[in-house]
Structures are given as structure tokens and as C-alpha cells.
């Protein structure tokens, strides 16, 4: 009997998700032993045409990381959906847009301006990518660059979400163990739509820092000196995203003295990540005077970046204007 098939693909992402999967150490051998890897650009050589040639539903498991930034990403998302029994939005980019989605704050023209005419680009002829270019050998095509980065589930139906930027390797290993057991008929797969490899509460739940009464008179940033090692960071005026962020990472950042930046996405039941975090942060500001509140809020210099660092594409507004 032939082995079940596995694929992993990247859309608009950094490659960190792929590395997190490779980082499951010897369990990667079990992946190779259990599955036939039909597509995984970072690890094996395969062509899109090989995937196109497979019967529909032939791939058992696809981990799709990265957002849908261009026509190629969308083509692959639709193709892999059709070919896969289980499609997982893997990591923050695929499930909520992540840092690449902060480009949604700007129109496409501004992005091209930055990339192809910015101070770090040598481009005296002002060349820009062309979707179609006639060369002596024929016509060349580049995928259309979309004006808005979308999450995977805006484009195709997604079976599961594994959050994180990137997902923690021990969580990936735990999810794979469930998949292996299910393939052996020893376990049931979780209900469709589940968030896997994470908790259902918030990072605060996992954070061992001492919590008392939260009352903030000023926000502090990292350059304002080191944080107290034991007290809740938000209580110290450090904008920590713990209260809105799903647990599962083990509160790694707060443990290291750095604020949670929200990479595990919205906690269970949260509709709009930024709104939840704004709600939590505004509640602890210790002032009833509009002018003083404004003064305190001056300590958050980039609200869109602070509240939607990982979640802009997955938010209610989905982009800026």
C-alpha cells in the first residue's frame, strides 16, 4: 500500500514556519516514514505540475503557511485545497496575515515605490515588475500582485488552524502525533475548524509574573530601561499583548522580560484581536481626564502596528486606507 501524501507550501511568509517544522528534531524522520512528501519547496524538489497531476483529494495533509499576496499564492491555495483532504492554515501569516499584512496599511503603489525606488534600492532606470513582458523567446508572466493580502481562509475553506509566528515546535510535534495516531486508526481527528497546537485562554494564563492591580499612568518602552523581573509587564506600563493573545507558546517573551507581541493570534472567541487588546489596555489607564488620557496614549506611537501587528488581514477592517 502506498504511503499517505503530505505537502507543505508557503505563500507570503518568511520561511520561519518551515524551519519550525524542521525543528521538530527526530520526529521529522517519522514524517518522512509516514508520508510521501509530494511538495515542500523548502525541503524537497517537486514541481507544481506534479501536484496538478494528482487526483483530487490525494494529499492527506497540507500545511499551508503564508498569506495570499499574489496570484500564484491564490492559485496554489486553490490547487492544494482541491488536492488535500486536510488543509491546515499553518502559522500566523496563513491564519491572520501576520507582519506581511501590515503592508495592507498602504496602497499597492506605495509598496512598489518603497521596494523598487526606496533608499536601499539601486534602480536608476526606475524599473518595475511587469505582469507580461515580451522577450525574443516569447512572452513572460509574473503573478499579479494583489492590492490586499488575504488570509488563507478568505480564499479557500480551511480545516484547521495552527497559530504562532512561528508555531512552537513542540506544539507542531504534538499535532503531528495526533495525525499519526489518526492514520493508524488509534485516535479521532479534532472537529473541523479547531485551532490546534495551542490553548483556549490567553498568554496571561501561562505567564508566571505577579499580577495585582493594573493602573497605568504612563507607557514605557524597551529603551526606558529593563523591566522588573517579577511583576506583570502591563502593570509596569509596558504594552504587553498577553490579555488578547492565545496561549500555547508558554509565555516565552514575558518570561524573557519582553512584552508579548501577540504572535499566537486572538484567544478563543475573540472577533477582532486589536479591539480586544485596545479594550484591555484602555481599561487599565488610570485617568478620568480626557487631556491626561491623551497624554498617556502618546506613549503608544504606532497604534495600528501595536494592536494589529499580526492580525491586520484577519481583523474586521482587514486593511488600512
Amino acid at each position, binding site marked *: 500500500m502506498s504511503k499517505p501524501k503530505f505537502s507543505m507550501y508557503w505563500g507570503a511568509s518568511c520561511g520561519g514556519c518551515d524551519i519550525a517544522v524542521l525543528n521538530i528534531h527526530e520526529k521529522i524522520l517519522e514524517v518522512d516514514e509516514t508520508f510521501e512528501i509530494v511538495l515542500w519547496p523548502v525541503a524537497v524538489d517537486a514541481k507544481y505540475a506534479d501536484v496538478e497531476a494528482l487526483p483530487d483529494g490525494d494529499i492527506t495533509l497540507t500545511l499551508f503557511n503564508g498569506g*495570499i499576496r499574489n496570484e500564484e499564492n*491564490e492559485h496554489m491555495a486553490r490547487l492544494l485545497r482541491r488536492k488535500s483532504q486536510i488543509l491546515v492554515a499553518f502559522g500566523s501569516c496563513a491564519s491572520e496575515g501576520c507582519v506581511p499584512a501590515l503592508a495592507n*496599511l498602504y*496602497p*499597492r*503603489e506605495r509598496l*512598489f515605490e518603497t521596494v523598487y525606488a526606496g533608499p536601499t534600492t539601486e534602480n536608476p532606470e526606475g524599473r*518595475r*515588475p511587469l*505582469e507580461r513582458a515580451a522577450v525574443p523567446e516569447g512572452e513572460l508572466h509574473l503573478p*499579479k*500582485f*494583489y*492590492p*490586499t493580502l*488575504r488570509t488563507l481562509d478568505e480564499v479557500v475553506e480551511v480545516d484547521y488552524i495552527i497559530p504562532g509566528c512561528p508555531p512552537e515546535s513542540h506544539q507542531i510535534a504534538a499535532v503531528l502525533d495526533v495525525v499519526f495516531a489518526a492514520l493508524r486508526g488509534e485516535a479521532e481527528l479534532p472537529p473541523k475548524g479547531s485551532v490546534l497546537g495551542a490553548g483556549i485562554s490567553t498568554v496571561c494564563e501561562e505567564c508566571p509574573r505577579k499580577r495585582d492591580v493594573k493602573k497605568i499612568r504612563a507607557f514605557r518602552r524597551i529603551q526606558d530601561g529593563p523591566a522588573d523581573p517579577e511583576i506583570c509587564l502591563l502593570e509596569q506600563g509596558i504594552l504587553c499583548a498577553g490579555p488578547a493573545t492565545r496561549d500555547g507558546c508558554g509565555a516565552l517573551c514575558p518570561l524573557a522580560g519582553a512584552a508579548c507581541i501577540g504572535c499566537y493570534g486572538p484567544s478563543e472567541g475573540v*472577533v*477582532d484581536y*486589536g*479591539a*480586544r487588546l*485596545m*479594550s484591555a*489596555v*484602555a*481599561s487599565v*489607564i488610570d*485617568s*478620568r481626564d*480626557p487631556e491626561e*488620557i*491623551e497624554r498617556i*496614549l502618546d506613549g*503608544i506611537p*504606532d*497604534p*495600528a*502596528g501595536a*494592536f*494589529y501587528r499580526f492580525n491586520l488581514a484577519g*481583523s*474586521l*477592517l*482587514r*486593511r*488600512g*486606507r
Partner: protein
Amino acid sequence: MTFEPVLIGFTCNWCSYRAADLAGTSRTKYPPNIRLVRLMCSGRLDPTFVLKALAEGADGVLITGCHPGECHYLEQNYKALRRYHLLRRTLQSLGIEAERVKLVWASASEGLQLAEAIRQFTEEIRALGPLRWNARPELRSEDAPLEAVP
């Protein structure tokens, strides 16, 4: 065609909702552009509600509550105040005019004042023009014109 703003107004059960009721029973006119939603308190106003209204087609959102010091739940309207200030900054940072969200205090007896505030807000948003977020073509990539790519 003239632009008629679509406005959502969040009211507090104990003050501004009753002010709106008073405006109605005393036949005070205010523009029909606003759709009022009753909450138990302005402190119940999750910023999600405002973002959802804007994302689904509202041009402006009016948040109303009890005057400072008069909250039925002691101090939840101060929470609303702080969330309002933070939300406006975030909207601004997303490129949406902060003026599209406004906070007004109105006690149960201030039907006239609330009607006037609604009239004023309607005119402010009329002057600002439509937001119509859900109609933005760039949110649907397949609709984006190809020639817009340089």
C-alpha cells in the same frame, strides 16, 4: 445623488437611551440616518462593535453614555471614555478619520440635547463623505483592476 450617511448610535439603558426615548415622546425631530442600539452601559461598548459597524457599511458611529460621575455602574463610562480615545487613535493610524467616531454624554432628561447632537453628528459625517468600507474594491483582489499594477 445626495449622500445620506449611515450612522450607528450606541446608547446606555439608563441615560442616553431614555434621552432618545424622551426626544421621541416629546416629538423632537432628529435625522433618521442614525440607528440606535441599546446597551446596558457605555462601558459595555467593546471597540469590536464600532469596528464591525464601520466594516459593514456605517459611515460613522456615535457612542453615548451617562455624564461623568453619573454612571449607573459607578465608573464604567470612564472606561468607555478611555476606549474611545484609544480607538480614535487606532482608526487614525489605519487611515480612517477619527471624527467618524464620536462620544456624547446625555442624561435621561436631555432629549433635546441628544437630538441636537445626533443632528450635528449627521452633518459632520455628511461633510466628511462616505466611508462604505465593505464596498472597497481592493478588499476583493479578483476585482482589482490589473492596470493598477505599475
